[in-house]
Structure formats: C-alpha cells, structure tokens
C-alpha cells in the first residue's frame, strides 16, 4: 500500500491535520476522517455537484480532488455557513422558499451559491442557472432553487 501522508489544511477556518492515502478523495477525508458529513457523495464522478466545497475560494467537486492535494489549501464546506447556531441567509432562503425536498443536493447548492453570490452580488437568472449547472437536483425542478438564490441575493 502506498505510504500514508500527513496533510495540513485550513478546514472551515481552523487548522486541521489528517493522515490519508493518496487514493482517498477529499470527500472521503472530509466525511470519514474529519466527520464533516455535510458534503454528500452523489455520483462520485463529477456530475452531480453534491460534494461541492470551496478550495481557496473556488468551488470544486471534492470527489475529484485527492485528499493529499489539500495540503496548504483553505477548504470551506457547508458546515461553515451557519454561525453560532444561526443559519446563514442563503440557508434561511432555501428553507423558507422550499428549495429542497430530499435534501441530498442541498449542501452542494448552498456552497456553490455562496461562491456565486461572491462573484455576482446581484446575479441574473441566467447567471444563476449557468453557474449552478454543475449541481443536479432531481426533486425541485430548479425553479425554487433559483428563486431562493435570488432571495438570498436581496438579503445582501
């Protein structure tokens, strides 16, 4: 077996150190080693977006990142959104707008939306649909998600 590596990364604002095999994805490390189970495994091949996290501020699919690649990186997962037991505005808007049913895709949508609103504080519907195209939802038909993102933009 390949040698395990010690990796240090900033996870949700805190310094974390973990041991991982080269073949482990960042998603596996987050869920199984660090017990941050908010990021979901949907397809595990880069199509569904349920495992979206921010890596150095950029949205990435954690199933397509090796854990060892996180060395020195800043990672933000859905667990970083709520602060002191208070949902972030984007989470509140998804909740109030019923922008979810089964909820598996929701962490990925929330993280991607966070990145989207930082890039486009007042996104058009096209901006929203284009930038969230790498996040699949089989329940909502997307309209409620788009409306929740627009509502979250208005709270800013």
């Amino acid at each position: 077996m390949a040698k395990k590596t010690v990796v240090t990364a900033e996870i949700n604002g805190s310094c974390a150190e973990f041991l991982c095999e080269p073949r482990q994805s960042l998603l596996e490390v987050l869920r199984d080693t660090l017990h941050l189970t908010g990021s979901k495994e949907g397809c595990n091949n880069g199509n569904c977006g349920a495992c979206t996290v921010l890596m150095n501020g950029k949205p990435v699919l954690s199933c397509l990142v090796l854990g060892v690649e996180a060395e020195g990186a800043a990672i933000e997962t859905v667990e970083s959104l709520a602060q002191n037991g208070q949902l972030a505005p984007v989470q509140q808007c998804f909740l109030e707008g019923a922008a979810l049913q089964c909820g598996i895709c929701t962490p990925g949508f929330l993280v991607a939306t966070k990145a989207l609103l930082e890039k486009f504080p007042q996104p058009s519907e096209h901006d929203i649909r284009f930038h969230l195209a790498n996040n699949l939802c089989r329940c909502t038909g997307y309209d409620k998600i788009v409306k929740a993102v627009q509502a979250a933009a208005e709270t800013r």
Partner: protein
Amino acid sequence: MKDFAYAAPATLAEATKMLSEANGSAKVLAGGTDIIVQLREGLRDADLVVDVKKLPELQEVNFSATHGLRLGASVPCSRVYEDAKIAAAYPALVDAAKIVGGWQIQSRASVGGNLCNSSPAADTIPSLIAHHAYCEITGANGRRNVPVEQFCTAPGKNVLQKGELLVAIVFPPALSHCSSAYERFIPRNEMDIAVVGCGSRVQLNATGDTIEFARIGLGAVAPTPKYAQEASEWLAGKPASEASYAQAGELAKKVATPISDMRGTAEYRTHLVGVLVKRTLARAVERAKAFKNP
C-alpha cells in the same frame, strides 16, 4: 480506487525524472477532472500519480500583446476566462474554457489537461487549432514543439512518450482585425459533450471586408480533433460574407469522418459541421472588426 503513490515535484527536472524512471504506469495529475474519474472507474491505471500543479512553468500565464500567450499546461480554465487580456485576444479559447463541464470543473480542469486527455470531443482543442497554437513538450531527451493539430493520435492517445510532459501551450499574438469563436452543438444549454465542436479564427484586412487568412478546427467528427486545412486556406482573400462562410462549411465537411452514436448520426454530425463553421466564422468576423491590438 486502486492504490497508487503520489508525488508533487517542485521542478520540471524532478518531474520528468519521476515520469521516466517510474516502475509501472505513471500518470500526470493537473485538475484531475478526467484522470481521477478514469482511475476510479478502472479506465486508466496508475502506480504513480505525479501532481504537476506545483511546477512554476506549468502554472505560468504569460501574455504579451506583441509576443502572444504562453499558457502553462496546468492552469485551470477559470484563470483563462477571468483574464480580461486573454479574453480579448483569444476569444475562441475563452468560449471553450467557459463550457468545459460546469463551474466546479472549470476551477480545476486545465486546457493542457483537456489536450492530454485527447478526447475527440474535447472543447478546447478545436479552439487551440484555430488559434494556431503549438505544444511545448519536455522530456529526458530535451524539448520539442508539436502543433496542436498533430498532438492527438487516437481517442485518448497522443504523441507524449514515456517521461514526457506537456509544459505549455503557446499562442501567436492576436493582431488588429483578428478574432475567433468556438461553438459546440449540444441538445441542452450546458454540461454536455459536444455532438460537434468548431473553432474558427479570421484575420481581416484593415477595412474589415476581406478575410486575409483563417483557421478552422473541428471536434467530435473524427478519431482526433481536426484542422480543416482546405476550408481554411480557401478562405484566404475571400470576402467576409455569408456565401464565403457557407462554402468554407462545405469544404470543412471533407475532413469529417464521424461515427454514429447516441449523440448523433454521422450524417447529422456532417451537417452540423457546415452549420457551425458558418456560425463561428460569422461571429469571429464580427469580433475581428472590433478588435484592435493595443
């Protein structure tokens, strides 16, 4: 995923040494959006994965209005399209970089990786052909340059020998009245693989009514991306008109030897070559009329 060793060398010499001396199969990791999926699904095999994102030459974006662009092979698509100077000078590349997968993919996936994955349907390759770019390759036996249209040799295969590494893609400068466009046909708006992809680039005369020269690259119509040479050369000296674009589209169909699959029949793909050549030439000409090299 099958077990493998991982290394992230800091210098080119170290990287090529690792790749050439590896026992068994060594694979290069840039954005990982193809290779990690292929390793997980057993489509490719690696005993050693060499992460090339720490190599400065592969992360370099060196743009000069007079000397062109040197794009490091592991630079992600998002860095390409977020650069206003690149977007102005190399719009076909940017059109393609913006539609490789979704946003999350573009944050990681590199143009160099798209080239090395060597899919016949890769979005960026027709645009690189249109831009007349070449590949800078380094290996144990030194450096060599290969024109982009000669890089891919079969689906998933290319000219890289064991121990060789794609370092950068080098683009000639965009002169005034020169511009380009890439379009792919897919049955939805985003997140799909091209049924046909087409990149076109034109150099117009100063008055903007005549094409001085042009280059057309095609994807998903043959085992490798194609340079439509006859169509491109025919356009030299022709008026920038719909009739010229249509005739170039007819000539470009000659290099198309597509397969029929779930995305479309061979006949449909051949038809699309004509459509996309016309559309991309028209868009490239409109952009070229407005482009001034600063």
